[in-house]
């Protein structure tokens, strides 16, 4: 009898033994670290090869330019021309999340963005960058972001409170959205894959086992769409939040 075990694909296991210890916790080279190293290596190799720069772009260069143009347009639309100084950052985040989402779909690989610690670190870094850059650029005047204009005085404290709370829940929603999409999607795929095995070994039920298999194929297609869309959503929300650091006026 096979048992459904959709969560073990997210287990972090050490490939090496514990290298050293930080405060009693072992630090090892894990499958998550390996996948991240592979992702960064792939991106760097792709960009190095694709941007050697010729006047007539080849296939690889066209692909790289497509990514570049797409992200640049997204940043320009949501954060204005000033936002383009953050373009390298948004581009890096977008490509990293896109690659980890898409590589995670390959059966047997590991989904880096299915770990809340990765997405929370990304989102926390983004929100801290917004705060620090906002204060650096506008000084204390940046706090106007939390004060909606043209509001009667008695309502103002409540609205400021709501604005501040909504600002600080942004990293939570940003990280949980990506993490939950990856975790939920991959768990659903694995559960339907378990149906195939359970039916196959279930005697006469083996006849209908191809149906969940077809469903798994459809789910992989949906996951591919979700992987690309969530990377896009992550990038566009990053650009929108950076826009708040650049232009605190409503």
């Amino acid at each position, binding site marked *: 009898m096979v048992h459904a075990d959709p969560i073990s694909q997210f287990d972090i296991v050490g490939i090496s033994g514990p290298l050293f210890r930080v405060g009693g916790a072992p630090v090892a080279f894990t499958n998550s670290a390996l996948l991240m190293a592979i992702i960064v290596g792939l991106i760097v190799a792709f960009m190095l090869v694709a941007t050697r720069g010729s006047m007539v772009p080849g296939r690889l260069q066209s692909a790289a330019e497509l990514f570049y143009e797409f992200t640049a347009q997204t940043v320009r639309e949501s954060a204005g021309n000033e936002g383009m100084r953050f373009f390298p950052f948004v581009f890096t985040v977008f490509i990293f999340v896109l690659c980890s989402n898409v590589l995670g779909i390959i059966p047997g690989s590991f989904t880096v963005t299915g770990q809340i610690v990765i997405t929370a670190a990304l989102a926390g870094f983004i929100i801290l960058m917004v705060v620090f850059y906002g204060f650096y650029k506008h000084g204390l005047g940046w706090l106007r972001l939390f004060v909606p204009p043209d509001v009667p005085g008695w309502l103002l404290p409540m609205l400021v409170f709501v604005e501040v709370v909504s600002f600080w829940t942004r990293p939570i929603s940003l990280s*949980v959205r990506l993490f939950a999409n990856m975790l939920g999607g991959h768990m659903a795929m694995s559960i339907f894959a378990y149906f195939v095995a359970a039916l196959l070994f279930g005697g006469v039920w083996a006849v209908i086992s191809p149906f969940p298999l077809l469903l798994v194929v459809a789910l992989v297609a949906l996951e591919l769409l979700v992987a690309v869309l969530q990377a896009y*959503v992550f990038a566009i929300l990053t650009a929108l939040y950076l826009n708040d650091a650049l232009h605190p006026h409503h």
Partner: protein
Amino acid sequence: MDATAAAYIGAGLACMGMGGAGAGLGVLFGQFLHGALRNPSAAAGQRATLLLGFALTEALGIFSLLIALLLLFVLK
């Protein structure tokens, strides 16, 4: 109550949240079609916004699915 039974009931309850996501997606695509059929020439330019809305709405359904799955397979 038995903790496992409570977890199963909770998983069922969590799935009710998907109804909200379903309603949201219906409104999203329905309204898009409503506008797109009135002014088909402007529809192509709004496809990115549509997909963004789809991803944001669908994420909420995934949240409730996630709670259900966690209750079923992780916290038992």
